[in-house]
C-alpha cells in the first residue's frame, strides 16, 4: 500500500476501534468506583500474613510471584536477544577505541558524586522496596543508570572496567536464576513453587516479609545487570569506530 492508501484504510478502522472502546467504557464502573474483590482482599490479608507493609510488592513477589519470574525472564531474554542482534554492530569493539581524557577535575568530582548519589538512591530503593515504595526493578534501573553516569560524565577508559560482560553475564544469571532457585527450594521442601518459606519477621523492618526480601534482591541484581548490559550494548555500538573520520 502507498502511505496514502494506508491512511485511508487505517482511519475508518481506528474510528471503529474507538467506537468499540467507547462501548466498552460505557460498561465500566465509574472512575473511583473499584468494586473488587481481588484488591480489597489482598489489602486486608497480605500485611498480616506476610508482614510486608508494601502490598504492591507483596503481590509482585509473593501472591503473584510467578508473574514477576516471567517478567525477569522477559528482561533477560531481551538482553540475550540484544546481544545476539547487535553482535555485528559491536564486532571489533575491543580493537579500536577512542580514548578521551576528562578535562577538569571538577567535572570528574561532580561526576563521582552524582554516581555515588544515584547508586545510593538505587540501593535504598531496592532495600526498602517491601516496606515503602520502591523495589528491585526501580532500584535496579536507577543503580544501573548511576553506574552508567561514569560513562556519560567520564571517559570511555574510566567506564571500561565496568563494561565486561564476562563478569556481568554470570551476575545477571545469578539474579534471574536465583529467582527460580528460590521457587524450586520451596518445591523441593514439599510446598508449592515460590512458597514463602523464611520467617516473616517484624512488620515494617528490613527483616520482615520472608522470601519476599530474597526475591526482591534477586530481582534487583537481575535488573541492575540486565539494564547495564542492555545499555552497554547500545553504547558500545556508538563507541565503535565507524567512518574514516573516527579512526
Amino acid at each position, binding site marked *: 500500500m502507498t*502511505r496514502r492508501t*494506508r*491512511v485511508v484504510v*487505517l482511519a475508518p478502522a*481506528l474510528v471503529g*476501534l*474507538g467506537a468499540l*472502546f*467507547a462501548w466498552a*467504557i*460505557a460498561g*465500566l464502573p*465509574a*472512575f*473511583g*468506583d*473499584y468494586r*473488587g474483590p*481481588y*484488591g*480489597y482482599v*489482598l*489489602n*486486608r490479608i*497480605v*500485611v*498480616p500474613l506476610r508482614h510486608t*507493609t*508494601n*502490598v*504492591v510488592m*507483596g*503481590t*509482585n513477589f509473593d501472591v*503473584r510471584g510467578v*508473574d*514477576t519470574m*516471567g*517478567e525477569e525472564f*522477559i*528482561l533477560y*531474554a*531481551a*538482553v540475550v*536477544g*540484544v546481544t545476539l*542482534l*547487535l553482535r*555485528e*554492530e559491536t564486532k571489533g569493539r575491543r580493537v579500536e577505541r577512542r580514548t578521551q581524557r576528562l578535562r577538569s577535575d571538577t567535572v570528574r568530582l561532580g561526576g563521582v558524586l552524582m554516581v555515588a548519589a544515584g547508586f545510593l538512591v538505587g540501593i535504598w530503593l531496592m532495600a526498602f522496596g517491601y*516496606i*515503602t*515504595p520502591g*523495589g528491585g*526493578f526501580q532500584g535496579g534501573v536507577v543503580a544501573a543508570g548511576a553506574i552508567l553516569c561514569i560513562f556519560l560524565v567520564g571517559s570511555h577508559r574510566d567506564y571500561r572496567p565496568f563494561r565486561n560482560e564476562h563478569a556481568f553475564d554470570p551476575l545477571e544469571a545469578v539474579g534471574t536464576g536465583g529467582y527460580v532457585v528460590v521457587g524450586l527450594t520451596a518445591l523441593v521442601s514439599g510446598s508449592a513453587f515460590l512458597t514463602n518459606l523464611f520467617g516473616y519477621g517484624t512488620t515494617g523492618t528490613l527483616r520482615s516479609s520472608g522470601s519476599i526480601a530474597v526475591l526482591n534482591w534477586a530481582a534487583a541484581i537481575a*535488573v541492575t545487570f540486565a539494564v547495564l548490559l*542492555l545499555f552497554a*550494548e*547500545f553504547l558500545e*555500538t556508538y563507541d565503535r569506530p565507524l567512518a574514516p573520520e573516527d579512526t
Partner: protein
Amino acid sequence: MSYLPYAVAAWICLVGIAGIATSKNLIHLAVCLSVTQSASYVLLLAVGYVKHGKAPIFVGLKLGSKAVDPVVQALTLTDVVVSLAVIGLILALALDAHRLAGTVDPDRLHEAQG
C-alpha cells in the same frame, strides 16, 4: 466526567497506533509503540482507583483503611518492564536494518515480500 480517565487511555492507544502505522523511522516507531503500551498502564491504574483511597502501602496507614487496588499496580510494574525489553529489541533491530539497508524507514525495506 467519571469516564474521563478511560477515555484518555483509549485516546492514547489510538494515537499510538496511528503513529506506528504511519511512521517513517523505526526509532520513532519504537517510541510510538511504547506510547501505545502506556494506554494499558493508564487504563489499569484508573480501573483500580478507589475514591478517597490511599496508596496500598501500610506505613502510617491503618490496616483496613480505604486503599486503592494493589493488583493493578503490580500488573503495571510488570507491563513497564515489558515495554523496556521490547523497545530495546526493536531499536537493536533498527540498528541492524540501518547497517544493512542504509535506512531506518520501514517502508523502504524491501527484502521480504510476496
